[in-house]
């Protein structure tokens, strides 16, 4: 697989010191928390997030002669971190197992009737309930804790892919390229994330808040 994204990050150590305008000595102090905060919700564990920040600093140091000063030091470091994150996803993409689209997805189990008049219609038990004033939840601190727990329960890298799409607004074409999955596999993962999150929020947050029928 070609490594287009990282090719813009030189891997040859430079023979010159860091260019003017960069202060590598202050990077950890000034940016590590911010970079870590950006990346930690997007990968599976803290150790990986820490590694990505560390790799970013080292790659930045090697690439520092190319720093043209067109952007701020901070924006430049964030750009390198995004490339490192894309590399990470591409590696992870090789491990992502995607169920066959034609067969029922695990998240769909029980949600649709499989026989009778209402075949393939929502089953009464698991059909979407009414959510009362959902947007009021967005100012509730507890809601965010529930949402984060629900995200962490999604299988494999589903949550990370879903976050790339919904939080960072990355296009599906770019995700396919960065992560190395087919468009078909990508939409199955996004659909599973949406089904799973919707259900999890309903059970763990909205239950009892809405009128049911």
């Amino acid at each position: 697989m070609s490594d287009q994204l990282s090719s813009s990050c030189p891997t040859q150590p430079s023979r010159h010191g860091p260019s003017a305008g960069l202060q590598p000595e202050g990077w950890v102090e000034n940016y590590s928390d911010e970079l870590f905060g950006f990346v930690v919700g997007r990968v599976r564990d803290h150790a990986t997030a820490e590694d990505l920040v560390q790799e970013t600093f080292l790659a930045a140091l090697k690439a520092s002669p190319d720093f043209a000063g067109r952007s701020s030091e901070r924006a430049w470091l964030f750009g390198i971190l995004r490339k490192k994150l894309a590399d990470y996803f591409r590696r992870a993409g090789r491990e992502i197992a995607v169920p066959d689209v034609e067969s029922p997805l695990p998240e769909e189990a029980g949600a649709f009737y499989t026989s009778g008049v209402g075949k393939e219609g929502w089953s009464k038990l698991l059909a979407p309930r009414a959510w009362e004033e959902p947007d009021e939840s967005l100012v509730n601190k507890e809601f965010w804790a529930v949402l984060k727990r629900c995200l962490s329960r999604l299988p494999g890298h589903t949550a990370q892919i879903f976050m790339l799409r919904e939080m960072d607004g990355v296009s599906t074409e770019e995700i396919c390229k960065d992560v190395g999955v087919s468009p078909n596999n990508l939409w199955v993962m996004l659909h599973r994330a949406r089904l799973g999150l919707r259900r999890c929020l309903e059970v763990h947050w909205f239950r009892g808040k809405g009128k049911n029928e």
Partner: protein
Amino acid sequence: MLNCRDVSRLISQSMDARLPWRHRLAVRLHLLYCVWCRRYAAQLQFLRRAMQKMAATPEFAEDQKLSSEAKARMRGRLQQALDRSSPPFP
């Protein structure tokens, strides 16, 4: 005729790409009489709003910081690399 399983998949797809007009029409017709799929569609839109708000409000996304040990490790490795890249003047 599309069933709810099909429509729920198409609703999800429509959030990432524009559906062919045949599917758009079929989904619209289905939503006219299916309250459950209407809710499903509205709730996916809510999920999107929630995720965007999470992205715009970093403290919702993650409140953990790097440990001071981790920072010390990073400083050490960065210093090593700095020493290698710029040899001291004679």
